[in-house]
């Protein structure tokens, strides 16, 4: 046969190589850039502030504090910081960040403001405070052991990554603001609780109140890391 096919093959093959490589790399880049990074708010990881030591059950522990809130939507801001920049502004969200860092085996006191309305939990088991000191939380100044499972705004529920301190578990229900008000009108419930952090490692927390869309209310923000889920890093 004539030489034409051989010569013509070369540019075709090079084009194909480049296309192939480009597509493969392109997909990897898309995957990494758009979604691979664990959502981290511009605030970054909130490192718990040390406020001294405290004695719990005869043990002296370091005492640290964290503060964060839950909002009916991510369009607002906290202390000048957008709650969930780049995210879906109509989705409820924790803010200002969803990642926290605490020392191991320390007493962690968390102060939360819950700005959202709510409703019924899928499983009323999450309406009970668990894993905190005394299994209680201070809600609007009163110590309570559980809230009404039909009036929950969100929950803060934490457990370790597989193999990390399986005994550790904290669940704090956050009551809903009264009425059916979804927008941020400034009303909030104050919830303060303390727990003893576990061993070093990564812990995942998520909300168990179905404030999302679709099946069982766990779609949308409930399934997208960063709105109603995050990490607790114990170092």
């Amino acid at each position: 046969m004539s030489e034409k096919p051989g010569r013509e093959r070369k540019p075709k093959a090079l084009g194909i190589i480049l296309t192939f490589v480009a597509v493969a790399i392109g997909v990897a880049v898309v995957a990494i850039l758009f979604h691979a990074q664990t959502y981290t708010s511009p605030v970054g990881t909130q490192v718990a502030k040390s406020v001294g030591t405290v004695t719990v059950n005869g043990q002296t522990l370091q005492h640290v504090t964290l503060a964060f809130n839950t909002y009916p939507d991510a369009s607002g801001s906290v202390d000048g910081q957008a709650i969930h920049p780049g995210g879906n502004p109509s989705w409820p969200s924790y803010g200002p960040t969803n990642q926290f860092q605490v020392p191991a085996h320390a007493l962690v006191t968390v102060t939360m403001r819950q700005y959202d309305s709510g409703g019924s939990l899928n499983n009323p088991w999450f309406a009970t405070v668990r894993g905190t000191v005394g299994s209680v939380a201070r809600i609007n100044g009163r110590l309570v052991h559980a809230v009404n499972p039909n009036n929950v705004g969100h929950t803060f529920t934490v457990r370790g990554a597989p193999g990390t301190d399986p005994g550790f578990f904290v669940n704090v229900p956050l009551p809903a603001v009264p009425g059916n008000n979804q927008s941020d009108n400034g009303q909030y419930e104050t919830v303060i609780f303390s727990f003893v952090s576990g061993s070093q490692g990564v812990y995942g927390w998520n909300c168990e109140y179905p404030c999302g869309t679709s099946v069982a209310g766990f779609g949308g923000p409930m399934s997208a890391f960063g709105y109603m889920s995050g990490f607790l890093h114990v170092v």
Partner: protein
Amino acid sequence: MTTAAAPALLEDTQLSSRAGGLYRHQNIVTGLIGGIGLGAIGWALSHQFLQGSNWGTDMVVTVTMAGWVIGLLLGIGAFNAPVLWMLGHDQTHEDELYLAGVGQGPRRYWKFCTDHKVVGVQYLIAVFTIFGVGGTLAMMIRTQLVSAHSSFLGANAYNAIVSVHGMAMIVATIIMVTGPFGNFIVPIMVGAKDMAFPRLNALSFWLLFAAVPPLLATFVLGGVDAGWTTYAPLSVQAPPAMDAFAITILTFAVSVTLSGINIIVTVLTMRAEGMTLNRLPIFTWGAVIGSALGLYAMPAFMVGMVMMITDRVTGTSFFVAAVGGSGWLWENIFWIMGHPEVYVILIPPVAAMLEVVSTFARKPIFAYKVTVGAFIAIIALSIMVWAHHMFTTGWAPDLNGPFMLTTELISIPTGIIFLCVIGTLWRGSIWTRLPMYWAYLFLWNFIIGGVTGIYLSDVPADNYFHGDMFVTAHFHYTLLGGAMIAAVAAFCYWFPKVSGRMLNERIGKVAFWMVAIGIQITYFGMFWEGFEGMPRRVAYYDPIFLHANQMATVGAYLLMAGFVVLLYAIIHSWVHGRPAPANPWHAKSLEWMVPTPVPLENFLVEPVVTADPYGYGEPEPAAPAAEPEREPVPVGSAETTAGEPV
């Protein structure tokens, strides 16, 4: 070489400057413009008119992706001829020749081309690309899993990557042999000029092309977090990416269905004179049988996806229990497709590999009829085993026993395939060229994959192993270690015919050993993970599984490196390789009797078949004994009307 009196070859026909009509201006670029354009129009219209509370972005994504598919097909020219017919016109013979790629040189590979050899090469490049995408994603998965709580990928990203890796690999493995070689080789193997439906052939390729971008788009639409099996109701809960995923499936299923019909009709109706079913090469049987099973399975997938879309977009209640549906309905519909589908993946490459074994053992296929019967038995049984994927779902515990029976029965015809392989090897003259290496690797891998499948078919054992990495290791051994390696053997075998070059075997053998060892390390690591109790599809795992995961990741990197070396061997040989003779392996099937490169319409003289292609060691039958002189027959003469494509 022509004299003044001898007519030119068909592909050297001079066409007028109007031949092809609108097709002259249509190629992949116009296709992309059409796809993006119609997708954008769909997006704008659905955004404007359909953003109601129940419809939201799911409807928008669905309409946009459907617009992309239809727009691409419009832009590439797939609908030109049907529209002409509706207007009462037809295409001229010159138009048909233009469509077959005459006078366009390499540009025809970027267009809607009806020449089955062009479609075969287009499929080949698509297969490489999709494997590249799926393989890149696999490496990201294994990199995440090298440590127990890695922060390389986030939890959303990991699930999305696992889902797309799975679906991309399923797409690639379904078409990896029927696409390139079902199209390029099968018509020549049966003595036909082209396939039965050349236009549908081109359409099936461009449908495949259209199906891939929505799959990749899932990454930017929230990610599919439900695996490639997209169990409901998790997939009903999933972000709008799931709608793009559904469009991918619908489009791909149509592509596979058209391709399957084409192969079956071609083999049934367009065989050359003397090519009885008894003389059919076994690869052709495999392509037909695999495609027939695909025809059974794909509609179930499509139906399931349509129901999924309506559940998500219009609020039907097929799969959501709270409103009267059932996730089990999804699982049944899915696995009614899902199990036969793995045999759609497996049978064509295995049949192609049997050609390799016969050629490189210089012996006939052992127990040819029994092997064909085994393929048929496999597909018949495979439609009755689907609920072995559902042993632990609690759906129908009383059916676990019967499904265990049918599943274990499949090992009998599968065993016949092994008998065929070792019977062909027995006392053969083993010619240790590169394709044979892959055939031996298949033998090693598929025994391991098949045996571990038997563990899973035992219901009490499956009660432990279901949903853990043992299952993942099992199906990677059978699909990658078995089917894909058989496909690589087939590729190395037919590479000289398709590319006109000999594959560099030195580099190929380096790649072979890397891949062979990489497979064992990777998937034995995964069996180890599975024995220890590590679940599937987890981004974070208990550190007790650390060593097994490290072993699997190391193996995966070696495997990837081996495939990259193989890719280099292929590209290097395609560009610089030694020109290949027409029949480098001295094989006996019809594709080796035509010149390389293969002329348009394949045969310069109509073949008449007098024996099957496995006459190794047997004396040649009587005339025709000599290869006829290469006297091209004039185009359009009476002798070439027989067997013309429809």
